[in-house]
């Protein structure tokens, strides 16, 4: 017991982060930098690098910011928590950022209050995350935020009967609920909701099912990557498009790095999302020019880069507001009143949920200068995250 006491005192003296002002602020970034989701990690880093290149390596010209990257691989809460713990305790970071997967965010959340560390989530998109700790701010999107406008679009298009097909996991179920609830409240009907197994490779039976349901349109959500490609090909090659069935999706299905693989057949697919690389604004132009300069190409850029870019904006503002001192309460208070022009359009942090409010765009896959893009054709301004109330 005595030994333990001595040790604890010793350890406490060493580890408890000091509140003194520092010339260097450390930021720990947790994300998938290796493995099947490495594309997301790569984009985190791109967003961060682009922000620093455009806004200076030092906050307010005087406070240095140092970054420490840690790889979580896939969804692995135990590993994510251990890494966050290490970043806080050993590397003594002042802020945490990143986080691609919901369970990883959930595992990190309980560490934030006792260690007085603020976390800016760059991606993980389940609504409830920001409620797990008052020290979490999020600059990405939620499935509800992105899906609700699509249901409105469907209704405005005069569609009456829509079948939903989503991948059978957390985000997919969120998307299904959001679409169904909104579309039905607007007078439409969703006669059938199919949840497709995560490992589905052959979507033909699903297509047959859609055809047999007699629906006017199908709403689809799948995580970007091989499944979206196989789904879209299956949709077109099985003749559903020729039959006049509309395909409505979130932007995950027409994720920019996947577009070349989808090819011309993707032309005309409509999706709603918070960011398109083809967004026309001076901010986006500046952002993409810098990203291109850093990465050499825009072929691997997706919304994670913008999530990180805006996350950096929040972190910089928090550092400014606290003048480099570790004061998460003050930092979060400052973050709550932020609004700024992001590459994706005007955004602000909702003081109630600490989640980003932003425009959601209806886009259509089109061809510009021989390249497939998501062309924005309609704006849903200042969308909140409507996912909290229904999931509680």
């Amino acid at each position, binding site marked *: 017991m005595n030994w333990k006491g001595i040790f604890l005192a010793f350890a406490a003296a060493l580890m408890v982060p000091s509140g003194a002002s520092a010339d260097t602020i450390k930021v720990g970034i947790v994300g998938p930098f290796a493995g099947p989701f490495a594309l997301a990690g790569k984009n985190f880093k791109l967003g961060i690098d682009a922000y620093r290149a455009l806004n200076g390596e030092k906050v307010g010209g005087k406070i240095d910011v140092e970054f420490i990257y840690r790889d979580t691989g*896939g969804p692995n809460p135990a590993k994510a928590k251990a890494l966050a713990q290490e970043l806080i305790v050993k590397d003594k970071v002042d802020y945490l950022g990143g986080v691609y997967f919901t369970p990883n965010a959930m595992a990190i959340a309980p560490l934030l209050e006792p260690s007085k560390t603020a976390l800016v989530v760059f991606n993980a998109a389940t609504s409830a995350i920001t409620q797990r700790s008052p020290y979490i701010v999020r600059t990405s999107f939620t499935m509800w935020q992105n899906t609700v406008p699509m249901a409105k679009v469907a209704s405005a298009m005069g569609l009456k009967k829509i079948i939903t097909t989503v991948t059978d996991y*957390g985000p997919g179920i969120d998307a299904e609920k959001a679409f169904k609830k909104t579309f039905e409240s607007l007078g439409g009907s969703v006669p059938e909701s199919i949840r497709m197994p995560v490992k589905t490779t052959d979507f033909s039976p699903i297509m047959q099912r859609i055809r047999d349901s007699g629906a006017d349109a199908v709403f689809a959500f799948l995580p970007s990557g091989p499944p979206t490609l196989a789904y879209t090909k299956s949709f077109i090659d099985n003749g559903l498009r020729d039959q006049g069935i509309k395909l409505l999706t979130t932007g995950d299905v027409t994720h920019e790095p996947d577009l070349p693989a989808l090819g011309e057949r993707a032309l005309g697919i409509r999706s709603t999302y918070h960011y398109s690389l083809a967004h026309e604004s001076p901010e986006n132009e500046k952002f993409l020019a810098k990203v291109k300069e850093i990465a050499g190409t825009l072929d691997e850029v997706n919304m994670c880069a913008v999530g990180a870019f805006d996350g950096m904006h929040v972190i910089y503002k928090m550092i400014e507001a606290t003048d480099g001192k570790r004061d998460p309460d003050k930092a979060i208070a400052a973050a709550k009143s932020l609004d700024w022009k992001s590459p994706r359009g005007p955004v602000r942090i909702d003081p109630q949920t600490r989640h980003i409010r932003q425009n959601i765009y209806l886009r259509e896959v089109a061809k510009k200068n021989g390249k497939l893009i998501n062309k924005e054709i309609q704006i849903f301004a200042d969308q909140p995250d409507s996912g909290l109330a229904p999931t509680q």
Partner: protein
Amino acid sequence: MTSASIADSVKEKKTTALSSDLIGTLAIAVLGGAAYVVFPDDLGLLTRILAAAFFVLSLCLVTGICGIATLGHAVMYGAGAYAAGYFCVQGLTDPIALIVVGAMAGAVMGAVSGAIILRTSGLPQLVLSIALVQLMHAAANKASSITGGSDGLIGISPAPVLGLFAFDFYGRTAYLFGLVLLVCVFAVLQRLVRSPFGLLCRGIMQDRVRVAAMGVSVYPVLIRMYTISGAVAGIGGALIAIATGVVGLDSVSFAWSAEALVMLVLGGASSLYGALIGTVVFMTFEHFVSAASPFHWLAIVGALLIAVVLFLPKGLQSFPARFLVKLRGGRRDHSS
């Protein structure tokens, strides 16, 4: 080994086993304690290593001792993790009780999956084990009202250990709690492996037909070992659930099963020490290399695996074992 040599080693073990077991267990306790003092900032990683150690030890019992090839061992680990997590969320917050719950869930899952897997051998066995882990993964994803699905089972906040030591965000309590458990379990497993039952299992691995000819009914023996192995894996799962506070689908994944196999073989499949060495080396290596060069990490692990298979077929543990054998005057190698 022939049956004569087994009898031989039994005699030999009677004299030296107890003391060497004691030394081994003590060594683990001392090394574990030293790690706590020397790396106080890495307790998160160290706790993950402990949980993995239970898992790999458990795999050692069936793969190293009984010769069963499985790529689906995470069903038991995941069962322990989810059971402990679920009971904790429901209000049973005592950590020791949760470990017991995890062990029991793991044992039940071990008995069930063992009963299925052990009906075959070779490739079909491998495929069955994979199918089972995928089945459980799909089930855990589906039963999201209980497991939280892909978002993870959240809200696990265990009470202080023995009502005294609360779980802190440095992970001190979690690590020490895990270490004490590991030392206890390891001591028991050592006895188990040396017991007539353990030797019988080794015998089955070496020559199943012969053991059967001796009048032993092989299937129930293996199921018993599988159940014990399940309990050990379940403890590891419960430990990580308690330490992390979230249980994700990764705990019942094919990938985690495969990783455990890699760790086991890296250390040396036939020995409990090998299992521990493999776990510690692999997890530490992963931690540093994946941080230093995430993109090449997988290729490096792959190359390492190939190298082990080619140059160290008995795993890393064969280094010190060979060395010890020489020290003792070149006595015949009897890996334990």
